[in-house]
């Protein structure tokens, strides 16, 4: 549906190099990456809001690289909502109708459908200044979707919304995606959003696409050290692979599947490491003796750091586990790793 070929953009202090993206029709695709990686630039290039220095952009079979923004059929929703402050909610939502030759009656029907779906019917006569962040974002979504764009670009649509309302808007976005024929392309740096909404995604680092794939694979099967670090793969160790096992320092870790000969690293997500408090090691593979070196609260979960041989290992556990397992500095425990959770690259 959306395809970019060797997209190159040079801005004053930033450049995007050879971006090749391919988003399927009606797919929900996310672009993730650190701040300043170029995510918004890609969106604005697809929307035709910034000049492209090289490469081509397609929507379906149609090349849109040189087309003006208004001819592309691409809607955009920004994190700051960008509602027109001098128009009321109704004026904002119906703004684009006249440019798409949509009759008044049809426009009215679509307005009713969208405002009903998004729960903003009672706000139609209000000015944006009198709306909450969540309401503003619903209006922005309705405004973009009423003209039935081929593609909807979402630039961190949830980041400027109070945490309490984020869940609602996230659900609204999901429903909108399921009920429309529009392809969604969203920029986010929130992993939870990406995992709950998207089918596939890409990670951008320093102006280049570092990895593309199914959303679960991006988090569990990073292709490089930089991606692994970005997606929160906190346990990354240099390893030597031999006979279906990885040798990390003095540890021997059993692997579930054969390893590609070029691989040099072993990675495990912190939440995939289980801590046990048995008095003797259980009879199972990948179970190692470890000593707790620190316990640090991180919001609702705790990060427990352990020393396992010469390795520093990080795990995430619940508050309940901290109490039940009596985890504190100096405690001796066993850690076990499921072979399915081990990733090599």
């Amino acid at each position, binding site marked *: 549906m959306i395809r970019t070929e060797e997209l190159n953009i040079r801005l004053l202090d930033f450049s995007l190099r050879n971006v090749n993206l391919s988003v399927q029709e009606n797919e929900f695709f996310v672009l993730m990456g650190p701040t300043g990686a170029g995510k918004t630039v890609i969106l*604005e290039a697809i929307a*035709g*809001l910034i000049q492209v220095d090289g490469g081509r952009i397609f929507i379906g079979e149609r090349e849109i690289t040189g087309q*003006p923004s*208004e001819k592309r059929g691409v809607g*955009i929703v920004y994190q*700051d909502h960008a509602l*027109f*402050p001098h128009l009321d909610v109704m004026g904002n939502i119906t703004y684009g109708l006249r440019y798409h030759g949509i009759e008044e009656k049809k426009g009215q029907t679509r307005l009713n459908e969208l405002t009903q779906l998004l729960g903003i019917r009672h706000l139609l006569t209000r000015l944006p200044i009198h709306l909450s962040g969540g309401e503003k974002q619903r209006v922005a979504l309705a405004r973009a979707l009423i*003209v039935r764009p081929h593609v909807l670009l979402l630039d961190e649509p949830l980041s400027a919304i109070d945490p309490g309302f984020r869940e609602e808007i996230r659900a609204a976005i999901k429903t909108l995606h399921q009920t429309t024929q529009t392809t969604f392309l969203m920029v986010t740096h929130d992993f939870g959003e990406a995992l709950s909404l998207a089918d596939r995604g890409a990670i951008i680092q320093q102006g280049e696409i570092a990895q593309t794939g199914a959303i679960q694979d991006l988090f569990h099967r990073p292709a490089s050290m930089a991606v692994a670090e970005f997606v929160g793969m906190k346990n990354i160790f240099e390893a030597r692979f031999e006979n279906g096992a990885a040798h990390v320092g003095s540890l021997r870790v059993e692997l579930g599947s054969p390893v590609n000969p070029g691989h040099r690293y072993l990675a495990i997500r912190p939440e995939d490491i289980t801590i046990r408090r048995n008095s003797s090691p259980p009879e199972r593979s990948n179970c190692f003796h470890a000593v707790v070196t620190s316990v640090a609260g991180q919001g609702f979960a705790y990060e427990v750091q352990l020393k396992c041989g010469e390795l520093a290992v990080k795990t995430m556990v619940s508050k309940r586990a901290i109490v039940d397992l009596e985890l504190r500095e100096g405690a001796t425990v066993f850690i076990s790793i499921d072979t399915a959770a081990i990733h090599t690259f």
Partner: protein
Amino acid sequence: MRRKELFFWLTLTCGIVIVAYILLPLVELMTSSSIPALWESIHDKEVVRSIRLSVFSAGSAALISFLFGTPLAYLLARQDFRGKRLLEGIIDLPIVIPHPVVGIAILGISGKNHWIGRLLFDLGIRIMGSVTGIIVALTFVGIPFYIHSAKAGFMAVSPRLEKVSRSLGASMTGTFLRITFPLAWRSMLIGIIMCSARAISEFGAVVVIAYHPMTAPVLIYERFEAYGLKYSQPVAVWLVIVSLFLFLFLRILTTREAREK
């Protein structure tokens, strides 16, 4: 009550001195002429003609500034390009150049020794001693004020609003008319008033380019030179009234804008 510090008394004193310094001569001027004298002067055809000419030429200068300055102000507000600072400096030049010099400079290119002057002559346009010349001079001194204000107005409109409008199908022109203009019109109007106010008070450049037909400031000067202070004061009062009217309008607009923000 807490004792006020010395600094407070210092600022208060300076403030009073400055306000008195501005107001005293103006109050003296406004009260210097008797009502009959004012009545008589407003029935003086020469006075009426000069004030009308001043208002007309200042209004024309503002209109020209609006027509030509708006696209430039928009460009300066939206685009970053090499030489932008230089361009902004050039636009500000009329503010710092002594006014008679402006008149002389304009005459320099509009005379028969210059190709532009010859071209204008061929087209039947006369600068020296004409209303056209006065409008040229007033536009020259007034346009920076319009461009500044309009640019600030455009800068206050988030480019994202325009981007969203384009993505919804509106063309560049449609976006300007439906989004940018409704959000920036007040700054543009303030610019027009500032430009007119600056233009209406211009004397130096006008007196060099066109002593006749007489604008109000030139008439005041002439009456002062020929007949003395008493005779020039009523005309001055009328010019001040016109300027105050503009000023008042400007204040109403700017306070409303500040309140809305």
